[in-house]
């Protein structure tokens, strides 16, 4: 069982150049839980994740991990506690899968330390968990989008952090691999107590797999809480500008959002 860590954001303002992307945001990420962040394109989800893992310094406010300012923590110490899988990572040309996954061990290694047995074990466990062991000696360039995505997730797993932030981990995956990745993250959460924070575009997957759902609109918090409380027709309209019907998913008991576009809708609109 890993320790639970508190991660919270207070009066956070983020931006690039002279534009502000996130304006005064307050959030608490529940420790030991799975949190999903949803919101329209360009609303600042990736920006928020990057700031929580100290890649982007706040314009104002704080990101606090266990009460400590993330941006003042030693880089490697933070990287042993909190991992981030960026939205579209780039693999260097010709790198093999096991080499890429092995680089997730960087924060655990010292300048002159040799590669250890734990490093090998962590890489092997990450490959097994993501079903990429049979790809280990292949070059990352020649994998399919979905295989590549799983390899990147394996790299983040090899980092063995108690908190894991993932930016759209299921993009590029077919439906069965999406479910597999989300099941894998749930296993990680349940078996090891890893706190998971992920950006997802599929609201129904988010509602099903998350304990805690955060809806962002234009860099501001629209709603946060239990998926059944957050994922409502009003919320979908406010966040995405889309009419929808939200019913209860008979298979999970979680909310299920059915979009109402301009075509193929057989009911009378609310």
């Amino acid at each position, binding site marked *: 069982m890993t320790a639970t860590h508190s991660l919270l954001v207070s009066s956070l303002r983020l931006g690039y*150049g002279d534009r502000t992307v996130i304006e005064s945001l307050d959030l608490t990420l529940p420790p030991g839980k799975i949190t999903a962040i949803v919101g329209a394109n360009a609303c600042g989800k990736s920006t928020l994740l990057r700031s929580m*893992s100290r*890649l982007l310094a706040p314009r104002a406010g704080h990101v606090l991990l266990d009460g400590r300012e993330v941006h003042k923590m030693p880089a490697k110490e933070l990287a042993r506690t909190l*991992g981030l899988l960026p939205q579209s990572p*780039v693999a260097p040309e010709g790198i093999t899968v096991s080499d890429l996954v092995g*680089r997730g061990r960087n924060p655990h290694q010292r300048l002159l330390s040799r590669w250890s047995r734990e490093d090998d074990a962590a890489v*092997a466990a990450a490959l*097994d968990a993501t079903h990429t*062991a049979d790809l280990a000696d292949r070059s990352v360039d020649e994998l399919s989008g979905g295989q590549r995505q799983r390899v990147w997730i394996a790299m983040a797993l090899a980092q063995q952090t108690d908190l894991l932030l993932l930016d759209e981990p299921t993009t590029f995956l077919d439906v069965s691999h999406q479910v597999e990745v989300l099941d894998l993250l749930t296993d990680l959460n349940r078996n090891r107590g890893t706190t998971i924070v992920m950006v997802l575009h599929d609201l129904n997957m988010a509602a099903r797999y998350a304990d805690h759902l955060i809806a962002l609109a234009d860099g501001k918090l629209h709603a946060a809480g239990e998926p059944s409380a957050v994922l409502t027709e009003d919320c979908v309209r406010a966040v995405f500008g889309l009419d929808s019907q939200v019913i209860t998913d008979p298979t999970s008991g979680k909310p299920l959002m059915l979009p109402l576009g301009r075509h193929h809708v057989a009911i009378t609109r609310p």
Partner: protein
Amino acid sequence: MSTSLSPTLAAVTGSRVRRSRRRALVIGLLATLVVAAYGVNLMVGETFYPPSEIWRVILGETVPGASFTVGELRLPRATLAALAGFCFGMGGVTFQTMLRNPLASPDVIGITSGASAAAAFAIVVLGLTETGVSAFAIGAGLAVAIIVYTLSFRDGVAGTRLILIGIGIAAMLDSATAYVLSQAAQWDLQQAQRWLTGSLNGATWDETAQVALALLVLGPLLLGQARNLFMLQLGDDTAAALGVRLERTRIVVIVAAVGLLAFATAATGPIAFVAFLSGPIAARIIGSAGSLLVPAGLVGALLVLVADLIGQYAFDIRYPVGVVTGVLGAPYLVYLLIRTNRAGGSL
């Protein structure tokens, strides 16, 4: 602890051990080739001297003929070739790795051109000698690195923009070098060739010692960043998320690499394309396992030693080493430009 390993763990360990053995083997092989090429450069020339006589010269004995030819001419020349080649290779692959683009090599983006122009200016106009020339070259190399970097910086460095700006600045600096040389009181063709293409003619022990010292001080500094540099291949965000301090790494690495390049350039001129070719050649033979700094340094040393041998003895006319490496490097540059154009369409 269980004694039966999982098959995945066994495979991971096995392939890691295989890769590091292969890496050690390739580095050992490259080092052997460098030593062999160094030896040949000492033996071959107008007169052939066997290894036994060369060894006696190195031990400080007086050997008629060989003491001067080998001790005063060939030894400093070959030593400077190896050291400068190592500096170019290491400095070049540093930039290529940090900017994640083989085109972002210091001899393409103007850093060696800057060092060269400054060195020519320091000698021809200011009449400075070794230390002053090196200081000028380093200052100019750093200045160019900073200028190219800031000009192309817009919320993260864009590769193509940086390279285009760098190529433009390199062209400007090269014409500045040509202008400065045209102002020289005594027109010296060898000197001119040296600052435009790089040459080992007239290599002295003083110059060689300067480059050796630079390598001794800056080499370890750069090697200390090898792991961080290696992580930067994954992109800034991923590297930072894995505990790399980007700004600090960049500063240390740029200062150390520019220092190496500038010292080498001050001694030999900008030997064309060695910085540009060494990294990709090293990557091709060693794969993605581990840092490329030392392999690229060895490839650089080998390139300069072999090119100097070819330039001096393969043709009726003696060509400066930079002409030979230029002929080797130009087709690769064209190939990369064509490939970039096809892939990105952003050029």
